[in-house]
């Protein structure tokens, strides 16, 4: 039984949500039924991902041949530690997000669109899982587009509550499609040069080619820019803030935890496993491009977060800054830097999804997310704001939280190479994080509620704590982000194996 599962888990983890989504669309209009099915499928998918992670934890690589055609001719799913970790993050985020989604979606979306939300959600999850699992460059493009198209739809579904969701979804669609098309041009140049699309085979054949080939430079440049658009790396980040701020709460939780990270994974896969650092564009040029853009993104994202007045937008801008941290570790191009990036990525997924779930709990109780309307909300929603505070501490990087481990490793990696300026920026941006997190905490805990002003109309019902089904996933994510700050075996152990294998492939 275990052997059969091991044989088919790499396919099952993706096919379960991918096949369930259209079936749900065809056969069910009842939102609760679709939600229950989606939750069950997500749970199974998560179990498969956990199983795969356990199987690959000793550095083993699982290979699944679709239709029984062996690679490089057939499409191969190849699960190494890096894929397995991404599968776990995506499947875990999808599971937590769905647990959270039922009450939140029931409140935020009109009844007619609720089942469509879950269908898009499942499609988005399966697309992201597919990107992490596949070892075929074109297959990766298709999965990237499945997830992106579903994400555009998810964001646009927020349009019933705030029309800005629609223009945000439109901008994301234009930018995302340009990015995907750039990616496909890059893949085309690779295919034209080597005649293969299997990424392992691609790496082997590329390195047999002369180093100075111009089409390979073009290929790498197109792939980097295309994926940078999907990551929202500065200066290609403009679509992100409004998209995250006005999407339905449950969609923001899932997208912020999983979407950009999978694009980072794809970029790492191409830079290190396919091209390698001493081929085509090469490590030094990448260094000179990625490090400054990552740092500027960190600073600009944090500045915008400090001056934003819409709670969800504050943390959308913060995402741009946090993605900068992850890119920084990749830009360092060292074993330590990569390790730090993956630890950071893991912990940020937990902390950010907890924060957006807390904001979603608030959105469940009141329509406005303005900071001035959050005054005194901790009195009415103590459990929500307590979990928010824990997750925010992890985001800042307070000791004993997951965020601290990530930042510590990143600082260490920067200093090990003598980049003291980078270490300084990391510290400064963490202080800026304290500032924008403090603005929310101050509003929630220290300010008097404005709704009780004399003479003010009391249109809204008194605020109450969010329902248990929303608090549960929020607290799971918040507590896990502390747990992985104390017991670091899973993220750090996995990141070490990933960094080792990438370093070996990059040589």
């Amino acid at each position, binding site marked *: 039984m275990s052997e059969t599962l091991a044989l088919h888990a790499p396919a099952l983890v993706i096919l379960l949500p991918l096949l369930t989504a259209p079936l749900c669309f065809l056969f069910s209009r009842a939102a609760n039924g679709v939600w229950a099915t989606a939750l069950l499928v997500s749970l199974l998918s998560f179990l498969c991902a956990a199983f795969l992670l356990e199987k690959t934890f000793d550095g083993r690589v699982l290979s699944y041949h679709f239709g029984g055609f062996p690679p490089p001719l057939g499409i191969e799913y190849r699960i190494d530690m890096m894929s397995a970790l991404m599968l776990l993050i995506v499947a875990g985020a999808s599971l937590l997000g769905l647990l959270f989604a039922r009450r939140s979606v029931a409140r935020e979306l009109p009844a007619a669109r609720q089942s469509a939300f879950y269908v898009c959600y499942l499609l988005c999850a399966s697309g992201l899982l597919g990107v992490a699992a596949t070892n075929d460059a*074109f297959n990766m*493009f*298709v999965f990237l*587009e499945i997830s992106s*198209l579903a994400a*555009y*739809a998810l964001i*646009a579904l927020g*349009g019933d509550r*705030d*029309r*800005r969701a*629609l*223009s945000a*979804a*439109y901008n994301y*669609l*234009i930018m995302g*499609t*340009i990015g*995907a*098309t750039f990616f*496909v*041009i890059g893949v*085309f140049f690779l*295919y*034209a040069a080597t005649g293969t699309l299997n990424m392992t085979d691609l790496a082997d054949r590329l390195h047999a080619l002369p180093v100075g080939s111009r089409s390979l430079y073009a290929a790498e440049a197109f792939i980097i820019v295309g994926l940078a658009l999907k990551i929202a790396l500065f200066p290609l980040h403009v679509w992100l803030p*409004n998209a995250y701020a006005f999407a339905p709460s449950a969609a923001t939780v899932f997208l912020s935890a999983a979407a950009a990270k999978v694009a980072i994974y794809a970029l790492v896969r191409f830079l290190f496993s396919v091209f390698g650092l001493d081929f085509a564009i090469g490590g030094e040029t990448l260094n000179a491009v990625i490090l400054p853009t990552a740092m500027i993104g960190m600073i600009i994202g944090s500045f915008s977060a400090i001056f934003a*007045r*819409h709670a969800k937008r504050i943390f959308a801008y913060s995402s741009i800054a946090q993605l900068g941290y992850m890119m920084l570790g990749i830009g360092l191009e060292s074993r330590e830097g990569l390790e730090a990036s993956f630890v950071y990525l893991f912990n940020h997924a937990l902390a950010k999804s907890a924060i957006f779930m807390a904001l979603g709990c608030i959105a469940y109780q009141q329509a406005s997310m*303005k*900071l*001035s*309307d959050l005054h005194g909300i901790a009195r009415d929603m103590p459990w929500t704001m307590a979990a928010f505070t824990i997750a925010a501490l992890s985001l800042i990087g307070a000791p004993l939280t997951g965020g601290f481990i990530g930042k510590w490793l990143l600082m260490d990696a920067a200093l090990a190479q003598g980049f003291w300026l980078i270490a300084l920026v990391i510290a400064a941006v963490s202080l800026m994080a304290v500032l924008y997190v403090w603005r929310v905490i101050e509003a929630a805990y220290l300010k008097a509620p404005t709704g009780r002003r004399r003479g003010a109309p009391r249109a809204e019902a008194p605020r109450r704590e969010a329902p248990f089904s929303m608090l549960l996933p929020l607290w799971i994510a918040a507590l896990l982000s502390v747990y992985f700050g104390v017991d670091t075996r899973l993220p750090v152990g996995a990141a070490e194996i990933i960094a080792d294998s990438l370093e070996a492939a990059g040589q």
Partner: protein
Amino acid sequence: MDNALQILTEDYNAIIATFLMMIGLYIVMSRAHLIKKILGLNLFQNAVFLFYISAGKVGGGTAPILTGEAGAIYSNPLPHVLILTAIVVGVATMGLGLAIVLRIHEAYGTIEEDEIAQADIADDTRDEDRE
């Protein structure tokens, strides 16, 4: 000069595709009309598809259907198959894009980008003026 001529005569597919791509990208960037932008995006994507397919042509090759003749030359069928998938992606993108434009028209009453941006800014300031 010889080199340029060679590129013109032998790689004209790349030149045409690049030309179309740039027209498409320029439309996306320069037009404010949301539907025109989507059409530009579509042109951009289709130019890439054309590039793929034209590159799969093998000189003197026929359609890749096995006839049993010895020594027959076939065009490379793989780019065709890839682009068939990519066309589906492109159609889905265009469909979704137009659907969003329809919703934007309902919500904003316009599909001119600058007017929408102004409405968004107005919404933003309304969010903030109660500080």
